[in-house]
C-alpha cells in the first residue's frame, strides 16, 4: 500500500456527510492529479518529490514512528507520541496545542469560558456547528491538495470562540515532526470559528527534531471564519526539515467589520507553499496578509495569496519580503480580485526580495482583477542584492563578512516583521529569523 491516496480506515466512517466529503475529496484529487508544469496555479512551484509510492500516513499501522527502536536520534530518550519538550517552543505564555507527527496530543490546560478547543474528529461528533462550516468554502475542484486533505479528513483541531469573547493569551498550534522515520505524511484539517466580536491570536509553528534530512509531507488546510467585528491575528512559522514538503492552505472568510491579520515566515522545507485564500465578504472587512521567507540550498518556497474583495469599503494590505540564497527559488503569486459592487475598496500589495547568490531565483506573479470603479489598488515588486557599500562600511569597522550580511538581512526583514502587532510574537519572529548565509543546506 502506498502512494498519496491510500485505503485507510478513518475515524468517523459512520457519519455519512463526513464520508461523503471524503469521497468527494478522493474523486476530485484523482480527477486533477498532482499539479504539473501545465497547471497554471503551480507553474513556478512544481510539487516534485511527491510522485513516489512510499508515503506512510501518520497514525496508521505502518507508521511506527511511535516505537522507540526507530528513534535513533534521541539516544533512547524518545518520547514520540508523548509530550515532547521541543527547544523551539514559544518564549511567552500561550494555550499550547501539540501535534506530534500529525497526531493531536491531549490538551493539558484549562480553557477560558466561551472557548472550545478539541480534536476535529471529536468536534464532528459533538459540535453541531461543524457540519455547517467544514469544507463549505473549499473549492476542491481547483485545489488538488485540499481535495487530498479532505479525502483524509480526521486529524486537526477545532477552535471556536464565542461571541464577544477575547482571548488574552495566544493559542499556539505546535506541529512537531519527530523525523525518526522516513516518508510520513500528515493531512491536517483545522477549523477555526470566531463568532461576532470575538478576538483571538493563533500561532502555528511547524518544526521538527531528529534527522534534518528526513523526508516527510505535511498537507494542511485551515478553514477560518471571522464573524462580524471579530478579530483574528494569525501567525505562522514554517521551519520544516530540509527535505520536507509542506503545503498549506488557509481559507479565510471575513464578515462585516471583521479583521484578519496574518504573518507567515517560511524558512524550512525543500518544497513549500503557504497559500491564503481570503474572502472579504462584507463591508469594512479588512485583512493584512504579510509574509517573509528566507531560504537557501535547493529549496523552493512559495507564498500565494488570493484576496477577494466582495463588498464595499473592504481593505487588504500585503507586504511580502524574501531572502533567497544558494540555488533556492522564491515564488510569490498574489491575486487581488475586486468584485463589481466592491466600490471604495483598498488593496495594496508589495513583494520584495533579496538575492544572495547568482543562482538564486525569484518568480513573482501579481494579478489584479478589478471590476469596480472608485477603488484604490496598487501592487509592486522589487528585487535586489545586498548593498556592497553597506557591506564595506560594516566590514571596515571590523564586522566579519558573514555577520555583516546577516545584519543586513535582519534589517531587511525587520520591516515586515514589524507589521506584527503582538509584541511577544514579533520578538519571537525576530529571534527565529536567522539564517546561515554561509553554509548551504543540502
Amino acid at each position, binding site marked *: 500500500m502506498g502512494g498519496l491516496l491510500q485505503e485507510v480506515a478513518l475515524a468517523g466512517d459512520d457519519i455519512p456527510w463526513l464520508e461523503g466529503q471524503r469521497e468527494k475529496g478522493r474523486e476530485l484529487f484523482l480527477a486533477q492529479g498532482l499539479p504539473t508544469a501545465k497547471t497554471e496555479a503551480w507553474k513556478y512551484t512544481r510539487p516534485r518529490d511527491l510522485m513516489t509510492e512510499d508515503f506512510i500516513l501518520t497514525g496508521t499501522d505502518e507508521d511506527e514512528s511511535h516505537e522507540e527502536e526507530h528513534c535513533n536520534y534521541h539516544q533512547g530518550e524518545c518520547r514520540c507520541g508523548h509530550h515532547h519538550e521541543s527547544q523551539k517552543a514559544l518564549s511567552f505564555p500561550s494555550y499550547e496545542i501539540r501535534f506530534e507527527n500529525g497526531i493531536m496530543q491531549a490538551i493539558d490546560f484549562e480553557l477560558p469560558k466561551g472557548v472550545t478547543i478539541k480534536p476535529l474528529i471529536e468536534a464532528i461528533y459533538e459540535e453541531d456547528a461543524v457540519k455547517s462550516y467544514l469544507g463549505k468554502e473549499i473549492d476542491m475542484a481547483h485545489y488538488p491538495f485540499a481535495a487530498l486533505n479532505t479525502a483524509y479528513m480526521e486529524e486537526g483541531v477545532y477552535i471556536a470562540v464565542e461571541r464577544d469573547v477575547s482571548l488574552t493569551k495566544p493559542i499556539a498550534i505546535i506541529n512537531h515532526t519527530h523525523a525518526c522515520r522516513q516518508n510520513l505524511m500528515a493531512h491536517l484539517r483545522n477549523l477555526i470559528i470566531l463568532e461576532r466580536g470575538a478576538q483571538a491570536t493563533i500561532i502555528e509553528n511547524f518544526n521538527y527534531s531528529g534527522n534534518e534530512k528526513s523526508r516527510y509531507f505535511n498537507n494542511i488546510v485551515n478553514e477560518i471564519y471571522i464573524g462580524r467585528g471579530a478579530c483574528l491575528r494569525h501567525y505562522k512559522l514554517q521551519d520544516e526539515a530540509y527535505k520536507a514538503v509542506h503545503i498549506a492552505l488557509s481559507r479565510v472568510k471575513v464578515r462585516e467589520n471583521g479583521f484578519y491579520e496574518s504573518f507567515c515566515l517560511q524558512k524550512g522545507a525543500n518544497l513549500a507553499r503557504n497559500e491564503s485564500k481570503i474572502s472579504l465578504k462584507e463591508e469594512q472587512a479588512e485583512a493584512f496578509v504579510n509574509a517573509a521567507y528566507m531560504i537557501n540550498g535547493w529549496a523552493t518556497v512559495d507564498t500565494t495569496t488570493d484576496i477577494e474583495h466582495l463588498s464595499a469599503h473592504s481593505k487588504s494590505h500585503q507586504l511580502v519580503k524574501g531572502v533567497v540564497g544558494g540555488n533556492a527559488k522564491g515564488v510569490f503569486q498574489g491575486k487581488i480580485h475586486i468584485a463589481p459592487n466592491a466600490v471604495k475598496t483598498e488593496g495594496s500589495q508589495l513583494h520584495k526580495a533579496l538575492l544572495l547568490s547568482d543562482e538564486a531565483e525569484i518568480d513573482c506573479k501579481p494579478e489584479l482583477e478589478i471590476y469596480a470603479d472608485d477603488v484604490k489598488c496598487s501592487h509592486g515588486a522589487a528585487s535586489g542584492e545586498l548593498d*556592497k*557599500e*553597506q557591506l*564595506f*562600511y*560594516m*566590514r*571596515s*569597522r*571590523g*564586522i*566579519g*563578512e558573514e*555577520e555583516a550580511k546577516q*545584519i*543586513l538581512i*535582519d*534589517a*531587511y526583514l*525587520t*520591516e515586515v516583521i514589524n507589521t506584527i502587532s503582538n509584541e511577544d510574537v514579533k520578538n519571537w519572529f525576530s529571534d527565529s529569523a536567522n539564517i546561515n548565509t554561509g553554509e548551504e543546506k543540502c
Partner: protein
Amino acid sequence: MSNTPLLEIEDLSARVKDKEIIKGFNLTINEGEVHAIMGPNGAGKSTLSYVLCGKSGYEVTSGHVRFKGKDLLSMSVEERAREGLFLIMQYPVEIPGVAVTTFLKHAVNAQRKYHNQPELDTMDFMKLLREEGRKLGISADMLKRPINVGFSGGEKKRLETLQLTILKPQFAILDEADSGLDIDALKVVSEGINAERNEHNAMLVITHYQRLLNDIVPDFVHVYADGHIVKSGGKELAAEIEKNGYAEFTKEK
C-alpha cells in the same frame, strides 16, 4: 615606541576600472605621528584611503603596504580593521534598519573577539556609548536611529568620530572629517580626535582646510597631486597652500 613604522606605503599604484589614479605613492608613518594630506579635488585622496582599507573595485597594480610590519594588502577588509586600521569616510554610508547601537556593538565585539577579549556587557556598552556620544553632541535618540539615515552632513561626521573614539584604532585615516561641520562642531570633533592621540597610534588627516590643522596639529603635511606626493613639509606648508592654492603643484598638467 616600536621601531617598525606603523604604516609603510611603497611605490603604490592603483586604478579604478581603467583609470590609473594612484601613481607611485610613497609614505612612511611612525607611531605617534600625525600626517596631513592636502590636494586638489579628484587627486585621489579618497581613493588612497579606500585602497588602504581594502575596498573592492580598486586594483593595486604595483607596490607594497606594510601595517605594523605585516602585508596589509593581503588582508581582508575586516582583518585590517581588527588590526587597528580605521577610516572616517568622506561620505559615510546609510544603512536603513540597522541602529547605531546595534551596529557599533557588533563592531566592538567582533574586534574584541579577534583579540581574544570577552564581549562587552550590553549595559556597560550602552553607558559608554551615551557618554562618548554626549561629548560629541550626539543624543541618545540619535544612537537609536538607523546609521546615518537622514543624518545631516555634520551629524554623520560626528558619528564617524564617535566610532573612532569607541573603537580606538591604532591608525586612523580622516577623510575630510571636517567637511560639513559648523564651527562649534569642528571644535568638538577635533577635541574628540585629539583626545585619542597618543605615542602609540598615528593618524592620516585628509583635508582641504588649514582650519582643521590648527586644532589637530600635524607633524608633517604632504601635498598630493597627480597620484602621488609632490611636496612634503611641516605645518607651515598648510598655510602656504591656504594662501596660494595648488597651481604651482599641478601646472605640469
